[in-house]
């Protein structure tokens, strides 16, 4: 495939769990990496590039060296990608760029985290800590509640509109035995009856933190062909970072994913309407709503009508987050963003057991970090 910027030839997950006992992040990264390697049909020494995430509370600095040493790798390209929930998709185009630049041939992109009872976090001493926390605004829930309230005020969107997104995530999670909410569907009424955490956000509209790990192996299209790999191709990518604290956001209703998706679509020569799968970052329902609108799938403020006009299941006309999204699957910290890549790989190569979409050709994958402020969009295509 000549349009391919790189080939995704392996993908793997560790089943999300609410708590771990005595696990290390390093150990989890190692296990998921071994599975991704096996999925790719490669030997360890084929890996000559490594992209990892920050590992707060375990390895504050020298993360790539620590992970390389543990895995017995000696990569010719190694880096930390620190874009919050956008880190996973952000790794994919960086791997492609490093391969194109001749720095390496095959890159392991891996994210994960343990959730042991004691979870030390490093102290924050930055503007968001100094100017938001003292007023009672700690954590992401409040930031996204503010974004959601702003959307409701500007467009008249309703609690039901947002609840539909959580309902579909839970519905799709029933098709994924690994999902943390497998066996626990939720109706729109269930979502609306769940407790308000920070108005207007209900509990079921918020991801559940879990332990987990996700890995993807990226190589060149040429190498993928030589290997006879089951490949999925990177066709376009876009990235944008605009702010950190919600008070500094240029807009409360449209985010940096808008220009990111525009760039990714332009690079791939496709439009949002061409997608066979929407694999959209969903830390909160408002994030999916804003992304649907920013992608141009409907007019600004129109996501509620869009949610009522389509079927978002694997057999539906608009498959969306068929793994359950993070709202249905669980959010393994930074690896949460990579779940959207892993699911797109499975769907586009026809290995999404029990939830395979029909005629998979193109997928939109989005990643989002901080307060709708770090964005990466990918367009992935099936091997043709």
């Amino acid at each position, binding site marked *: 495939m000549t349009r391919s910027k790189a080939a995704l030839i392996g993908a793997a997950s560790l089943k999300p769990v609410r708590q771990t006992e005595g696990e290390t992040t390093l150990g989890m990264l190692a296990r998921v990496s071994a599975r991704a390697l096996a999925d790719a049909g490669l030997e360890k020494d084929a890996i000559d590039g490594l992209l990892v995430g920050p590992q707060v509370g375990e390895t504050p600095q020298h993360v790539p060296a620590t992970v390389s040493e543990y895995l017995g790798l000696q990569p010719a390209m190694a880096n930390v990608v620190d874009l919050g929930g956008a880190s996973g998709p952000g790794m994919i185009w960086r791997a492609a760029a490093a391969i194109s630049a001749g720095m390496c041939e095959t890159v392991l992109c891996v994210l994960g985290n343990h959730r042991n009872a004691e979870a030390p976090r490093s102290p924050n001493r930055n503007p968001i800590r100094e100017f*938001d926390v*003292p007023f*009672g*605004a700690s954590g992401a829930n409040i930031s996204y509640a503010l974004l959601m309230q*702003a959307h409701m005020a500007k467009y008249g969107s309703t609690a039901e509109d947002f609840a539909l997104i959580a309902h579909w995530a839970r519905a799709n999670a029933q098709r994924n035995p690994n999902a943390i909410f497998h066996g626990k569907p939720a109706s729109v009424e269930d979502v609306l009856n769940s407790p308000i955490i*920070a108005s207007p956000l209900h509990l079921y509209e918020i991801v559940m933190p879990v332990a987990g790990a996700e890995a993807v192996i990226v190589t060149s299209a040429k190498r993928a062909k030589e290997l006879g790999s089951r490949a999925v191709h990177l066709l376009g990518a876009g990235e944008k970072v605009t702010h950190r604290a919600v*008070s500094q956001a240029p807009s409360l209703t449209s985010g940096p994913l808008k220009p990111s998706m525009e760039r990714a679509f332009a690079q791939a020569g496709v439009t949002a309407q061409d997608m066979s799968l929407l694999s959209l970052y969903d830390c909160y329902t408002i994030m999916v709503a804003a992304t649907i609108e920013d992608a141009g799938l409907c007019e600004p403020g129109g996501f509620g009508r869009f949610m009522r006009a389509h079927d978002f299941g694997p057999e539906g006309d608009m498959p969306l987050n068929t793994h359950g999204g993070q709202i249905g699957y669980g959010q393994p910290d930074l690896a949460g963003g990579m779940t959207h890549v892993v699911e797109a790989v499975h769907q586009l190569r026809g290995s999404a057991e029990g939830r395979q979409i029909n005629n998979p050709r193109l997928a939109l994958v989005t990643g989002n970090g901080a307060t709708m402020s770090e964005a990466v969009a990918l367009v992935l295509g099936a091997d043709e």
Partner: protein
Amino acid sequence: MSELADLKVPGPTEIELTKPFWKAAAEGRLLVQRCEDCTKAILYPREICPHCWSEKLTWEQASGLGRLKSFSRVHKPGHPGWMPVSPYVVGLVELDEGPTMLSHILPGECEPAVGDRLELKPTNIGGRVLPAFQRKDQGENV
């Protein structure tokens, strides 16, 4: 109100640059920075203007008036120290001078609504007087 003062919650992690801001806040005043080159107002305080990168920034007392851009009633706080007063309201306050700040929104006569006119209400939160806001109820209905 006394409950807010009694909270055991994290205060501002003041740095050298922001000392004048928090000192004024303790005296019930709200400061912003003003860029001498592009004339824009800036908050939170920075070493350079984020609009034009000028280093010519001066402190200026803000009017204390603003508009509620968004808000949330927090039932489950991110920090457990806030539990005794939850639910409480935080909001994004677009100051008349231009910048937006996150602040604590004090209860008023009616429920908060996006677009509300707000005024500065210096308030003891956790033993420090911080620049909180409250709906400005005189006339000016949305």
